[in-house]
């Protein structure tokens, strides 16, 4: 197998909140067009990792990021235009965030912010993103209803549609299924399998079985430490090096 191109390369990363270290990663490679799983119990630094990638430390005074995150050949920490950087990175949060705008405006917000005013162009973007997020059929007749009044599962797909409207190269999902029913979770997982043809997906999750269903490679974070990275299947066939990984995957803790 040919070595795939690397989309995200993390080296000597340390994330601190004031003086407490939240995460330390020596080296982590995420390949282009793969779904990369990150598992680990709460407080292991998974969300901090995602926040460091799209420079959300700007909004948290106590958060401090050191080290190197290289995204598509660019050093994230040196990017001057953070807004353009964040636009290339879609984020989906644990709890669905339907902005209190209409369904249409939720998806059209990002294109609008980047200056697209043409109505037909916006219509086209909204329809395309909602279709790809598997939500179009349910909402196509009521695009002007409030997005925040949709059900949890629909809002989460709306969030994904919104992220897609940014035309991201990298999609970060932070425990997206935590407030979503199993059927919707399956639908979103199908969506993700399609999306990875066009972008790189980082999937942070508590559900060990979810990474098994979706991701080629997985990292295990524990207490702010990257314990192990490997082929996902190896995690389940016991070919892992660290006893803690084996224990976590087999449900002995966490």
């Amino acid at each position, binding site marked *: 197998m040919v070595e795939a191109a690397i989309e995200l390369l993390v080296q000597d990363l340390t994330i601190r909140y004031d003086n407490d270290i939240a995460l330390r990663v020596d080296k982590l490679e995420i390949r282009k067009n793969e779904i990369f799983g990150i598992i680990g119990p709460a407080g292991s630094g998974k969300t901090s990792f995602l926040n460091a990638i*799209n420079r*959300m430390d700007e*909004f948290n*005074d106590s958060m401090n990021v050191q080290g190197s995150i290289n995204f598509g050949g660019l050093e994230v920490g040196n990017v001057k235009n*953070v*807004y*353009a*950087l*964040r*636009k290339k*990175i*879609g*984020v989906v*949060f644990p*709890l669905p*965030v*339907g*902005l*209190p*705008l209409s369904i249409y405006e939720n998806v059209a*917000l*990002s294109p609008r*912010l*980047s200056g697209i005013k043409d109505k037909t162009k916006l219509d086209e973007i909204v329809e395309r993103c909602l279709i790809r997020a598997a939500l179009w059929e349910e909402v196509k007749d009521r695009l002007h209803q*409030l997005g*925040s*009044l949709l059900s949890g599962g629909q809002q989460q797909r709306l*969030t994904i549609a*919104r*992220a897609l*409207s*940014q035309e991201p190269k990298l999609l970060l999902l932070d425990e997206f299924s935590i407030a979503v029913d199993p059927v919707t979770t399956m639908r979103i997982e199908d969506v993700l399998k399609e999306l990875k043809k066009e972008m790189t997906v980082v999937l942070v999750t508590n559900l060990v079985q979810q990474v098994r269903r979706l991701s080629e490679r997985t990292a295990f974070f524990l207490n702010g430490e990257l314990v192990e990275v490997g082929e996902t299947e190896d995690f389940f066939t016991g070919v892992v090096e660290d006893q803690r990984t084996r224990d976590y995957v087999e449900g002995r803790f966490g």
Partner: protein
Amino acid sequence: MFQSTELNRRNHSVQKLVSILFGVVTCLLIVPVLTIMTVLVYKGGPNISFEFLFSAPTNGMTAGGIFPALLGTILLVVVALIFSVPLGVATAVYLSEYASDTWLTRLINLAIINLAGVPSIVHALFGLGAFVIFAGFGTSILAASLTLGIMTLPVVIVATRESLQAVPPEFRMACWGMGATRWQTIRKVVLPNAMSGILTGVILEVSRTAGETAPIMFTGAAFFLPFLPQGILDQTMAMSLHLFVVSTQVPGVPETLPYSVALVLVSMVLIMNAASIILRAYVRGQKKW
């Protein structure tokens, strides 16, 4: 198995007693409001007519209407709002959305709280010194409104800041995450959803501004003026001061006149409040999460 013990019975009767006691106290609160309104309507109501509202006082203010004072109060409130709402909202947006928690912002917050606690007569003297004399506006609507505006600024700031902070932080995170600037986030998502709370602040400000007497006494409100103000650098009569004057300063006023003036003043505040509450309910109905 479910038989009540001595302790259960005691808890139950205490709980009953508390609910009755607190209910009575709550009802007592309505008594002063009802009494005031009843007395005002009973004594001042019959005197109110179209002519009373829209003509000037005559016979050394012992007869005639209240139009100059009515118009004056409306002018004072409007000019004060024009000054304090943009300033207050801008301050609140800065404090809530931009400023990080440093000693400077804490100092500013402390100053705002203190500003709210300054007695109105002190504001009056400040307004006299700063606007009437130093800025050279003279005793005028402008000087009086600026004084009122400064006095009510903390109300607007605190109400706005609280309603901004009631907008869930997740909305901001979602916006920032898609590459929006702070200002884009504020304009598209935060401010529209804080609107009903900001309106509440404005309602409170209107009520307070309309009723204040001390701050306008030295800065722009006149005892009696034979003509209406021609611009914001003129003096004006005002309802609150007019009520004070006809109640205590002028001999030979018929007993019902002060009641009528008071009734109109209270009604003005109530009508403005009601209008704002309806507007607010409407705005709230538009936005939901």
